[in-house]
């Protein structure tokens, strides 16, 4: 097992290097001039040139890249121009916000999509099957930012059920003492049910927005996987031995059908982390996605590089985690490894 993990980590190294190089080149191709930005309004060309020299932007690209890699090796992700803070600190502070939102979005999605997939699989090609398919496909057919704006319009502006879309907590609440950075968990640790409820309320709409967007892949995978399991021999045997449909589906089929679904979840999670950049902007969510978008539009190199690198590392770890999990659940995989 340990060997497998090590091997997988080694295999990820080239693509991480690729990510570092591509991101570096991409950010340098952005049209903005950080020196002009730094120099502020009313700066003379000489002043801008001085700052360019100070920031090392007058050096050839390869030298700049060398400096960047050197910084990276020392754990220094640089400083953002637009927020004036070290990128590493910012990402660390903001990651929990994004992770909490994305995880909850994933949970919402699973809670809706898995039953949909199971129902669809039990009666393939029936009206219910088609309905499930239409519902889950419809969810992925609207741009996420638009779904979010509609939800805010209806549930906050018109009905007043949802709290103001002002980020993770209502302004008049204090954030719970930092333990995990997840407000839901931290408020429980602090035994502060009021803050827990407040944080949950803020999370509902954005999580729902993300959840709706990821219904389709999970429902589709559940359905396909259930179908193949339901037609397998051991289910047929179970049915033949007179077990109730419910028992067959839940106890026998569902358990076995979940393995491929878990693999999908990893993909969906990283897909959601990407989609989340727009959702965060809509809900004024202080996560890493909105941070990266703003930075990219401002041609602010360091946060974009830091963000992409963080996401890439997370992606690798996530896939590794899923493989390990898979191996633990399914003994056949372990043997093969």
């Amino acid at each position, binding site marked *: 097992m340990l060997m497998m993990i090590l091997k997988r980590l080694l295999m990820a190294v080239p693509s991480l290097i690729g990510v570092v190089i591509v991101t570096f080149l991409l950010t340098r191709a952005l*049209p*903005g*001039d950080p020196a*002009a*930005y*730094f*120099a*502020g*309004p*009313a*700066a*003379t*060309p000489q*002043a*801008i040139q*001085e*700052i360019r020299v100070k920031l090392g932007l007058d050096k050839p690209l390869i030298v700049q890249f060398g400096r960047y890699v050197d910084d990276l090796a020392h754990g220094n992700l640089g400083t*953002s*121009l*637009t*927020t*004036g*803070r070290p990128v590493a*600190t*910012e990402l660390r*502070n903001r990651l929990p916000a994004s992770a909490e939102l994305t995880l909850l979005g994933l949970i919402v999605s699973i809670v809706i999509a898995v039953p949909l997939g199971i129902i669809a699989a039990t009666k393939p090609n029936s009206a219910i099957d088609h309905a499930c398919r239409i519902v889950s496909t419809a969810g992925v057919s609207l741009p996420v930012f638009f779904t979010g*704006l509609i939800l*805010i*319009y209806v549930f*906050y*502006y018109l009905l*007043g059920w949802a709290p*103001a*879309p*002002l*980020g993770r907590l209502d*302004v*008049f*609440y*204090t954030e719970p003492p*930092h333990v995990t950075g997840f407000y839901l968990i931290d408020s429980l640790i602090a035994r502060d049910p*009021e*803050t827990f409820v407040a944080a949950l309320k803020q999370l509902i709409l954005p999580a729902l927005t993300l959840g709706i967007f990821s219904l389709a892949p999970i429902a589709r995978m559940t359905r396909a996987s259930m179908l193949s399991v339901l037609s397998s021999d051991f289910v047929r045997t179970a049915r033949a031995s007179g077990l109730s449909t419910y028992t067959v589906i839940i106890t026998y089929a569902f358990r076995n059908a979940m393995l491929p679904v878990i693999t999908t979840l990893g993909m969906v999670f990283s897909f959601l982390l990407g989609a989340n950049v727009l959702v965060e*902007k*809509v809900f*004024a969510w*202080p996560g890493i996605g*909105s*941070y990266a978008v*703003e930075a990219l*539009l*401002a*041609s*602010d190199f360091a946060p974009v590089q830091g963000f992409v690198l963080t996401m890439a590392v997370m992606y690798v770890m996530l896939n590794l985690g899923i493989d390990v999990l898979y191996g633990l659940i399914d003994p056949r995989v372990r043997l093969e490894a």
Partner: protein
Amino acid sequence: MKRRDFLRSVTALTAAAAVPAPAAWSPAKAQSRQETLLIVSESGPNNLDIHGVGTNVPGYEVSWNCYDRLISHEMKTLPNGTPYYDKDKIKPELAEDMNTGDMSVTFKLRKDATFQDGTPATAKDVKWSFDRSVTVGGFPTFQMSAGSLTKPEQFVVVDDHTFRVDFLKKDRLTIPDLAVIVPCVLNSELVKSKATEQDPWGLEFTKLNTVGSGAYKVTNWTAGSQVVLERNENWKGGPLPKLKRIIWRMVPDAGNRRALLERGDADVSYDLPNKDFSELKADGKLSIVSTPYSNGIQYLGMNVAHPPFDNVKVRYAIACAIPYQKIMDAVMYGLAKPMFGAAAEAPTEVAWPQPHKFNTDLAKAKQLLAEAGYPNGLPDPIQMSFDLGFAGVNEPTCVLVQESLAQIGIQTTINKVPGANWRTELTKKTMPLFTNVFSGWLDYPEYFFYWCYHSGKSIFNTMDYQSPQMDTLIDGARSAAATGDTAAYDKDVKGFVDLAYADMPRIPLYQPYVNVAMQKNITGYQYWFHRRLDYRTFAKG
């Protein structure tokens, strides 16, 4: 957790000044909405110190409210009842007395004023702060130079509470320039103790900490998300502000900002589309205050160094083709002052901004274009650029202009430039056609013209306009103002306005309004030259 360390250090500082710990640490219930102002805007500060490298405009707002300057302006009341800064009346802030001599000005400082850590604010702090602003480079240094303040030797500590500024030359803008945001007074000992060899002015420290004697201090700042300010209970620069706490949240989506205001969750926003302001005004549930930008104009600029806009006839043709009124109605929703269509016989005034005499007249535009040698319109499409950061106004404006120009045979493509790159593009002075807004902090015509029309290297002469005659008039007005020669001043001002409209390198469209939407129970809004909010006068209830 850096932010928490930061909070803790601020707590320690404030504890010394016998101020209660920031409310961010007390239980939610104890916090009173009544004493808190919730502001929403699109973007927030990137630096809490205006002397910092690349501090953005929201950062200026923090500086204005957290630091004192020696002097400030009195308020006057506009006809619509809005308090408006009086550019001619100076009032003391950290100083209690000002004495202007022939070639210097002497300030007596308040004896009771202290910084937020309890250290008295003295003349050496003022000197250090002024030295810093003329030395750090970039925007603060440039702004100081606009008032002929360029050398540390000009700033003299007479005694602990007496401070003198020596003039290099007579300049009418020197005193007003001491009342802008840049010459703020910092706690020099505290900053010096944080300075390093690479950072002799302690910019890294003041980027994250407000260390002034001002009315507020920042207790929590999450970049791009929120700024929390608490009142300085020992402020001596004016009457104690009514509001204990200011929470400033960044809400990127304009629709959400309006929703927050309409539902009563946010107290103030100055950052909404014009359409929303005009509707909310008509609706009457919120109070909306609209004030024209002082010394500001939205214009359509043309690069006069290159064809086809090096031909004044072509520029006139454009000026005749702009659908001014459509822009006023469909883009500005009437929330702007027209800068076009003055009566043909209207005399030029000694004032700025003032309207030009062009109106939308496509037939005349075609004729002018024909006279310029383009009877069938321009042969190649022209790129028209705008700042995406203000797309709400710029994009529909450009679309309307594009459509109108197409009717006289000028094809254009629209180029959206992301906000952060806009300045870079301006500096290059290569955009053939673009729209932009400029407004000067100091409300004097020669100040505006110096920035926008002078052949010097100012980046706001975005048209690359070079005219020795214009330069003579502008320089003439500046020296006439310094010596108080009214007749010469008036003649030069009229002269450069006339010349600007005769050469028409940029076409003024309108003077925009600063709009602020507030809940009905919020009072005390004042218009300042910097157009940002002054929290010190706000009250709730």
